[in-house]
């Protein structure tokens, strides 16, 4: 029960007091004061571009010739010379994947 009572003079008086206020240039002043809204799509695009460039550089510098499948039957096969190139490849792949997911889920 929240509607004003139709016959209550106080409610009638209150309703009648709610007079319309003329715009008188108010909307124009508001529009003049509006800030430029941030372009939400720019940041994820920027993130993707930077990550792609970084990944391309990393891929270019990766020691592909040293990328060999480690022989797991030999205990000493897992040395740094074998693992380091793989670590770099995994880092680049993970960074690129993260950037794509972050850009896709971007919400300002």
């Amino acid at each position, binding site marked *: 029960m*929240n509607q*004003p009572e139709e016959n209550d*003079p*106080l*409610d*009638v*008086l*209150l*309703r*009648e*007091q*709610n*007079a*319309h*206020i*003329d*715009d008188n240039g*108010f*909307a*124009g*002043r*508001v*529009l003049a*004061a*509006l*800030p430029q*809204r941030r372009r*939400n799509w720019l940041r994820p695009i920027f993130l993707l571009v930077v990550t792609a460039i970084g990944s391309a550089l990393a891929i270019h510098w990766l020691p592909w010739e040293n990328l060999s499948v480690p022989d797991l039957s030999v205990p000493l096969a897992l040395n740094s010379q074998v693992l380091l190139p793989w670590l770099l490849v995994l880092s680049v792949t993970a960074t690129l994947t993260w950037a794509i997911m972050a850009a896709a889920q971007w919400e*300002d």
Partner: protein
Amino acid sequence: MSFTDADLIARVLSSEDQHAFGELVRRYQSPVRAFLVRLTRGDAHLADDLAQETFVKAWRKLQTYRGSAKFSTWLFGIAYNEFRTVARQRKELALEDADEPAKSAADSRSDLRLDLTEALKGLHSSERSAIVLCCQNGLTHEEAAQVLDCPLGTVKTNVLRGKEKLRRRLPDYQHYESA
């Protein structure tokens, strides 16, 4: 052809259409400004500054409007928060429980209207806000509770208590008849 609020909001969000936002401002400037004039106890300049800030904030935050409430309710919420921020800064909340104005005899309709304006000023801000939203702007108690960020029961109590105070302060209101 008249666009709905939802159409205008969609245009603002998709293409930052300032004309569409201007139409929303023109639609709602009167109730928002009138609400703020009441809250600021008749300070029209302060009310206009707050109203302008309300619409600028609405522009900034429009993507957070989910459409679950009426657009006007969402705007009133922003306006009320703006008022509260300024009131805290100016420590005006301490002045809200002003002494009740002296009872005056209203011999005419215009006198009664002036008395009502003065009587509203004398209410506590929570009572005044609830009455202005529910009795003057036609919001439901639920919508007013959303705007004022308080429990539904508090809004109902404030409306009842505020109207009771107004009746006490306006002894001649019963003789009032709509024009």
